[in-house]
């Protein structure tokens, strides 16, 4: 995800700035031709985006209003389901299943019965992992920002977990948390890490924090390095303590970078799939929304499309809240800081 967002973010910022400059010049013919040229230049990107993003999205939304194929009890063949209205959405949101006796609440052991628990698990994972990753990432970033011998070695070493593909990470932790694995041997315990809910969730959280903290650390480090050293010197001269310098200088100045890092991580964590899929297969209270979607795809596409759309809306709302109420402010001071540096 980060790779998709990042390249988009930079041109976005630039265009906005350019737009501002153009307005200052005033509306004239030159601007019009420039606008046309710009539209031409942007067109290929837009067309590609329309094909790879817009079309699948619209198709998925269309599908989400279609009934899944049903079985004709006489011939034993599947027949097309037809228009479903909001039935697929009602199925997920109210956990209503069709049973031989009519609509009823989905019995345990069906995918339909897991929507809200999966939502809860997803948010729980997101909150806990992002919390720890931010805390540890900040700590690591502060250390990496100092000048000392072997700093580059440390920075490279910190990156290792992030560089390992998630699937490999998941398999590594799967072995570590096996019953006769390293975790139990090391601490001389006999915990069934993947055998019950609490330990299974803890195992996934530990693996995720291990893997993604470096990402947080690097983004925060970038933020820390934007802070000019003079500010600290001035504060020292004024007699500010280390804690005061951290609270009144580091924290507010790093906040923009921090908010962006947290936003990325939250969006990333909300669609967590590979770690639980490989470590537990979604068993024992580790079924996230993404796992539910993939499981549903194997049973019925249309209902899965509805679930994807719901998942998208959930993630979108979270992203919107971040950008609107937390991020907007962050972006403003970020650009302010950048301006100050240019001058």
């Amino acid at each position, binding site marked *: 995800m980060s790779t*998709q*967002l990042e390249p*988009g*973010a930079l041109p976005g*910022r630039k*265009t*906005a700035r350019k737009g501002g400059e153009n307005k200052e010049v005033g509306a004239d013919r030159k601007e019009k031709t420039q606008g046309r040229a710009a539209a031409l230049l942007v067109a290929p990107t837009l067309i590609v985006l329309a094909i*790879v*993003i817009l079309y*699948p999205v619209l198709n998925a939304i269309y*599908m989400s209003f*279609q009934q*899944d*194929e*049903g*079985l004709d009890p006489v*011939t*034993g*063949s*599947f*027949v*097309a*389901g037809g228009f479903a209205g909001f039935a697929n959405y009602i199925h997920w949101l109210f956990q209503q*299943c*069709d049973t031989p006796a009519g609509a009823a609440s*989905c*019995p*345990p*052991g*069906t*995918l339909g019965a897991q929507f809200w628990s999966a939502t809860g698990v997803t948010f729980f994972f997101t909150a806990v992992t992002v919390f720890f990753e931010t805390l540890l990432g900040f700590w690591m970033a502060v250390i990496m920002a100092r000048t000392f011998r072997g700093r580059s070695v440390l920075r490279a070493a910190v990156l290792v977990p992030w560089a390992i593909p998630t699937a490999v990470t998941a398999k590594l932790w799967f072995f570590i948390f096996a*019953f*006769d694995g390293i975790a139990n041997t090391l601490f001389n315990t006999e915990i*069934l890490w*993947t*055998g019950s809910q609490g330990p299974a969730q803890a195992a996934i959280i530990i693996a995720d924090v291990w893997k993604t903290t470096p990402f947080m650390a690097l983004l925060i480090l970038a933020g820390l390095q934007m802070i000019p050293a003079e500010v600290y010197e001035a504060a020292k001269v004024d007699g500010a303590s280390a804690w005061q310098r951290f609270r009144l200088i580091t924290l507010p100045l790093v906040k923009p970078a921090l908010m962006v890092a947290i936003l990325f991580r939250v*969006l990333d964590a909300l*669609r967590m799939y590979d770690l639980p899929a490989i470590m537990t297969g979604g*068993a*024992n209270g580790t079924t996230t929304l*993404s796992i539910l*979607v*993939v499981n549903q*795809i*194997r*049973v*019925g*596409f249309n209902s*899965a499309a509805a679930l994807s*759309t719901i998942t*998208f809306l959930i*993630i*979108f709302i979270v*992203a*919107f809240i971040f*950008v609107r109420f937390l*991020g*907007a402010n962050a972006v*403003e001071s970020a*650009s302010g800081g950048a301006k100050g540096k240019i001058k």
Partner: protein
Amino acid sequence: MGIKISRMYVPMAAAATLALALTACGGGTGGGGGGGAASENLDSRGPITYVQGKDNSDVIRPLVDKWNAAHPDEKVTFNEQSDKADQQHDDLVQRFQAKNGDYDVASVDVVWTAEFAAKGWLQPLKDKMAVDTTGFLPATVAAATYKDTLYAAPQTSDGGILYYRKDLVPTPPKTWDEMMGMCPIAKAKGIDCYAGQMAQYEGLTVNVAEAINTAGGTVVDKDGKATVDTADAKAGLNNLVQAYKDGNIPKQAVTYQEEQGRASFQDGKLMFLRNWPYVYNLAKTDGSSKVKDTFGIAPLPGKTGPGASSLGGHSLAVSVDSKHKATAKDFVAFMTSAETQKFYATQGSLAPVTESLYTDAALVEKLPYLPVLLTSIQNAVPRPVTPFYPAVTLAIQQNSFAAISGTKSVDQAMTDMQAAINAAGAK
């Protein structure tokens, strides 16, 4: 300026999240029954494509080469999928759904046959397309049959067998109760008594279905309706639940898939292991195996005689959209002939589907477990033959796991399993 930028961010964040949330969902709206396609191209001959999962022991390529040498005008192209069953399934679904005849002949896992047949993707193997299944083990044919029509030709088979320590128990147990009665021997030695595959995944369905079938119950009836809410089925699940509660099944067994159980057995830490035939050669030859000369094999223990194993293996199906079905049919016959099956067995340790091969002296010498496996497969029950298999297996896994780990009573688990299986088929 800040506000302007933040406005840029909203659609960007929207586009990105939208893309992420929905990329998983690339499938089209499937069209149901095959209709006319099943009666087209029946006499047509020409090049075809054969697809199956990863050919780990290199058995398919030599066979395809042999076929191609003999049929220069009807060459077969071999398309190899990944070695993950889920991915093979999804690949087949996508190709079949596209209806372009990409795959003419496909190797289909026994549990997928009903789904694909009900979707109308498989050519019924009758009339002109009939293949000869005389001498095949009945369970393998039953697993490839949907609504009384054969949709695939059994290719290879698989069944569960009981690995035991003959140094500790000279005669293997014939019944479940007998086996449980032997557990004090293991306890005295300080090792675990019995384990199968009881982590929450497909293996649990296999083990629970075996327990239910062995106790005289069934999972679904002929029409795919659930039948687990019966005394027999409950007794079957209860056997596992009770053994786990008593410690006869060690507590870590709920994290065991095939490999963890094998590791424990080879390490000498387990007296009885339910597993597939592949373990045999590894336990005999693995350098780390501590039980090389001290383990034996037996049919799964049952209620009074041998237990009812779940059936594994693959069958060959012809796509209903194949352009050259006559060639496809001949190729299927070639790939399931007795001679080819012998080659599967000797080259790839894949168990045959023809009953007489299990007593073939040359084969038994190479694969000493064949006679035991024969008993296992003769008593085998296919896993639920239902077009809703993915939903049914989930219903079995989640509810039986809850019962085994003690968060649900057996009665409640079976009531929920019954409802969940029926909900899967109610759409």
